[in-house]
């Protein structure tokens, strides 16, 4: 048998590590695993980076095996998802960081530290990521021996805001944004360090919406979990269910009928269009172009009508299930979809013209919040953010799933790396999604739309990746042979992209912050209550986002 790409990747590691490589296997095309000796993961990852400089890290999955904690570094390397596996003893969970060789891993290591208590030596900023500020130390919720005790007491949050290290130079002002916002999306807090109007640095605090889904998934059956993962995110819910169902189908070796795969493409692309239109509208709002917001959201309603016609629900599609989809497409819905797609294509080309030529948008977006290609690769950003910085990656093409292998579509890539490019990528993607939906409706295979699947799944593990509207979404599922999963790990695209916000915002003006944030399309888009703190006197005053937009923020009440 000819040496495949997967074998070549593994051989690279075998040459470098020798005895340090304990075991290696390829579970299916584009999925390779290597188990390395404790402490060798750094060497393995740097060897991969030497051989394939464009290697990126997707996430780190930790598992509690009882006596040890297993760490899985999921890397995207030369067209293969390579998982580097290493174990650390639970009694002394300490291992070396990889953030110096692959900076995109910084948040994933903090996540593992927060939820499993693994300490990464040499990590520059190993602090809490998701759990609340008053969470008791020494409690690691995702360990198997941890269970939610009877009511952890709630304490008031600390009154002091921010990091004292930032209160250094006299002209520097700290601006705290969040956690509450005016329009949509989740609470999140940012601490901006300003010199006059220029942003010097930003510190992000996430975790306001951390609910503990990964732990809850372990106490629900696979079929119940489909409904739970659907509610990880209300906007890209279809991406989550497709991703989770594919992982379970891989474990159970379920053959999904071609018709179901084609229907999954239709619902996933409808979901992408609705998510992108939502973001483009909000972007219009944030740069002070409210008419555009109203226009785009009006067109978005037609997409939601199609989703409702196809699935029965406007937002939570509840369409995918393990083994296929839950409803077939009727000929009348198919005709409606085709008709509405023709209308939407006209609207999209109009919006493209607006984004290309409108002077307001040009002034507020071009050359703002730049992220260059080398930084984008280093920070391992995903999806439209990566594509706007010249990184040509799309899971639908590079690691095809569902019926994307045969479907014709282009991957729009822009080199500018600014806010404008990030919005244009999405406008172009809406047009591509329309083509994909038309292709899928017209080339719908006949046959069943689902197969019955047993409740119990065999022992095994699977890694599933999906191109969600915001980028690569990853689900890792491990089964222990029962009807309940042993571990479900989810890496959402926003976690991969939020790390790049710091790079984008440095050196730009306060008024650019909303536009830059929204161009990331994080699952939180706007900022509401801004407390301005003068570092000298400790004086605070409040202004809202509207004042921030209209440049009245310096005025004190």
């Amino acid at each position: 048998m000819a040496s495949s790409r997967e074998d070549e990747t593994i051989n690279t590691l075998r040459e470098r590590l020798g005895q340090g490589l304990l075991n290696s296997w390829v579970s299916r095309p584009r999925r390779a695993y290597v188990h390395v000796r404790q402490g060798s993961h750094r060497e393995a990852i740097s060897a991969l980076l030497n051989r394939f400089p464009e290697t990126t890290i997707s996430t780190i999955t930790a598992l509690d095996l009882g006596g040890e904690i297993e760490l899985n570094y999921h890397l995207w390397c030369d067209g293969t998802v390579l998982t580097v596996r290493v174990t650390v003893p639970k009694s002394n969970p300490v291992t070396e960081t990889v953030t110096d060789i692959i900076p995109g891993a910084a948040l994933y290591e903090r996540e593992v530290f927060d939820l499993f208590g693994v300490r990464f030596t040499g990590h520059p900023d190993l602090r809490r990521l998701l759990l609340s500020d008053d969470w008791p130390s020494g409690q690691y919720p995702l360990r198997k021996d941890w269970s939610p005790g009877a009511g952890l007491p709630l304490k008031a949050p600390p009154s002091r805001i921010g990091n004292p290290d930032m209160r250094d130079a006299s002209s520097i002002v700290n601006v705290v944004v969040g956690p509450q916002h005016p329009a949509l999306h989740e609470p999140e807090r940012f601490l901006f360090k300003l010199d006059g109007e220029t942003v010097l640095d930003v510190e992000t605090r996430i975790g306001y919406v951390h609910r503990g889904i990964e732990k809850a998934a372990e106490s629900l059956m696979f079929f119940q979990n489909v409904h739970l993962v659907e509610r990880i995110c209300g906007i890209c819910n279809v991406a989550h269910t497709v991703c989770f169902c594919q992982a379970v189908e891989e474990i159970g070796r379920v053959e999904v009928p071609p018709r179901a795969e084609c229907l999954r493409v239709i619902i996933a692309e409808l979901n992408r269009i609705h998510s992108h239109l939502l973001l483009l509208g909000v972007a219009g709002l944030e740069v002070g172009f409210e008419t555009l917001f109203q226009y785009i959201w009006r067109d978005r309603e037609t997409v939601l009508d199609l989703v409702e016609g196809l699935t029965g629900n406007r937002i939570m599609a509840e369409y995918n299930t393990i083994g296929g989809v839950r409803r077939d497409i009727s000929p009348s819905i198919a005709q409606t979809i085709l008709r509405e797609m023709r209308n939407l294509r006209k609207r999209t080309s109009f919006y493209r013209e607006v984004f290309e030529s409108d002077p307001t948008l040009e002034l507020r977006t071009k050359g703002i919040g730049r992220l260059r290609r080398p930084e984008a690769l280093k920070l391992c950003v995903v999806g439209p953010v990566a594509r706007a910085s010249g990184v040509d990656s799309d899971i639908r093409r590079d690691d095809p799933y569902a019926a994307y292998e045969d479907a014709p579509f282009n991957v729009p890539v822009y080199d500018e790396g600014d806010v404008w490019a990030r919005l244009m990528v999405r406008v172009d993607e809406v047009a591509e999604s329309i083509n994909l939906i038309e292709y899928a409706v017209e080339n719908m295979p006949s046959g069943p739309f689902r197969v019955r699947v047993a409740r119990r799944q065999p022992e095994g593990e699977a890694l599933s990746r999906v191109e969600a509207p915001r980028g690569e979404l990853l689900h890792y599922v491990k089964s222990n042979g029962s009807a309940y999963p042993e571990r479900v790990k989810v890496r959402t695209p926003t976690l991969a992209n939020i790390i790049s916000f710091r790079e984008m915002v440095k050196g730009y003006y306060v008024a650019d912050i909303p536009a830059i944030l929204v161009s990331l399309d994080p699952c939180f888009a706007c900022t509401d209550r801004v407390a301005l703190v003068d570092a000298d006197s400790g004086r605070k005053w409040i202004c809202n986002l509207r004042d921030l937009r209209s440049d009245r923020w310096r005025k004190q009440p």
Partner: protein
Amino acid sequence: MLRVGLTNWARRKSPWVLHFNSGACNACDIEVVALLTPRYDVERFGILLKPTPRHADVLVATGPVTRQCAQRLKRIYEQMPDPKFVVAVGACACSGGVFRKCYNVIKGVDKVIPVDVYVPGCPPRPEAIIDGIVKLLKEVGG
């Protein structure tokens, strides 16, 4: 509740709304925002979304309330001027919903602040949210 006729009349005609996500999945949140857009257009009831609690009469709260958000939600409620009303939108905000068993949630908005109207659904349709707010306005008008 304040029973001055003129104030209540004014309040019924223009309830200003603050939206706060206390850990929701965004589904309810985008439906709340959809209320402002041309198809639903709640401005015809005088409803305006406000960015700060100090201007709001009605708090529209979504989400099961995470530990990290609980105190913030309370603080935001306390910042609103009296009389104030709370609408819990979505199954999570009513009872914790699908996240009931998660370790990091408080299971509903009414565990932290008093709730006047519950709008169930996952997510509730925009029509249901409008219905909830209109019911609240009837209550206010007496």
